[in-house]
């Protein structure tokens, strides 16, 4: 019973949303809208649960003494932002917190991505197999072909570059997208027909 009820509810809600996707009928649309609203409310409660888990995890770490400094910073930042948000909603203090603490931190982390991408590509370029050779040769060609000098060497170089991007790269991307779309349909059908229930 503990499993049948959630599976039954999931199948019923999923099928209703599927019907709502294909049918433009006021009653079905209304039921679909109610279900979507329900998801939003559930997600909000889940966020509250997530917040409590985060607080308890770092309070425990603080007590245990494993990386206490980082946990303390996290707890102070979390509770401080929460207090400002609840007590002074829409205030200049809250805007300041986002403008001068949150966004700079986010930008700093995003900036690291450039270095991470270079280090990942450096490792991928180790010529271990045919894939690595293809990756390296095509990447080097594309880098070189972007230079203004490339057109001076031969007018065919920019043409080859455009062909590489328009044909093999686009074909590969579309192949991945088509495969992923089929996988999505298969996964959705497994859940809708109760063949799979990863949540219960």
């Amino acid at each position, binding site marked *: 019973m503990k499993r049948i009820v959630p599976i039954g509810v999931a199948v019923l809600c999923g099928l209703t949303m599927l019907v709502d*996707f*294909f*049918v*433009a*009928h006021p009653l*079905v649309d209304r039921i679909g809208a109610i279900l979507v609203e329900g*998801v939003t409310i*559930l*997600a909000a409660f*889940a*966020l*509250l*649960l*997530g*917040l409590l*888990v*985060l607080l*308890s*995890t770092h309070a*425990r*770490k603080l007590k245990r003494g*494993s*990386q206490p400094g*980082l946990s303390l910073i996290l707890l102070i930042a979390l509770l401080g932002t929460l207090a400002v948000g609840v007590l002074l909603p829409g205030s200049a203090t809250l805007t300041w917190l986002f403008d001068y603490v949150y966004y700079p931190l*986010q930008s700093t*982390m*995003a900036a*690291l*991505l450039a270095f*991470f*991408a270079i*280090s*990942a*590509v450096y*490792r*991928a370029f180790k010529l271990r197999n045919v894939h690595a050779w293809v990756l390296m040769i095509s990447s080097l060609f594309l880098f070189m072909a972007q230079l203004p000098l490339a057109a001076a060497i031969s007018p065919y170089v920019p043409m080859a570059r455009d062909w590489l991007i328009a044909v093999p790269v686009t074909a590969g*991307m579309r*192949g*991945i*997208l*088509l*495969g*992923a779309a*089929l*996988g*999505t*349909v*298969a*996964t*959705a*059908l*497994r*859940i809708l*027909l109760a*063949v*799979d229930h*990863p*949540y*219960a």
Partner: protein
Amino acid sequence: MEPLSALIDSILSASVDLTALAILLVFLPLFVVFTARGKAGYRFGLRPIPLYSRIRQLASHATESGSPLQVSLGSGQIGSEATPEAAMALTVFDYVARHAATCAQPIHGVSGDATLMAAAQGVLQNARQESGYPENYAGRECTFYGPDPLAYAAGAAGTFGADNHLALIALGEFGAEGLWLSEALADQATTRMGGTSDPSAAALMAASLDEAVIGEDVYAAGAYLHRPSHLGSLAAQDILRLVIMLAIVVGVIMTSLGYWS
């Protein structure tokens, strides 16, 4: 009868996505037939996917060594468009959790979405109960690191180093944070593997991870690990892929011959 005819009219109205309906109508019978065959015991041939073989090995290794695996479930919200990817992340987490639960070993799940964390907690609780050690479930092994993807990656990377994990499995919905997480752990000489279906993020993760899956292989996790019921849908996918390839070839020939502009 009037509401019924109105309903049928609305189905046949121009607002219906006929392409999606056609794909569904072709896919559904294939799915039902192959899933029924799979459930009847028919064994479908599977090409090897190294990532899933490694996950099997590492799940066993983790139970023997006592060092937990960290399963990073991504940022896909259950109930959003990312639900199928989130479901696959949960399937992998379920596999690892069942292995860990059998020997009362720890496991760690991290997610960037609260609904996914709640679902992972349910999966882990079931695994602990079914293995006969319900008392080992404390609700602390699945952590949520906030809805910001980079904050999630930073939190997951920090936890990984602190708790002496054996390996990282990052499979689910990832963007650039997948690269961030993987590269932040690169100097810890540990196994990092996973994948995502988004082509841009998948390219970055494939370059960075030791073992990676991209695109449709992400959705094959269940069939390769512990859900034989998924095999039928994989076979249905293969048939439909052949149909699409045939349609593309026919389309190219017809267009080249000038039948379609």
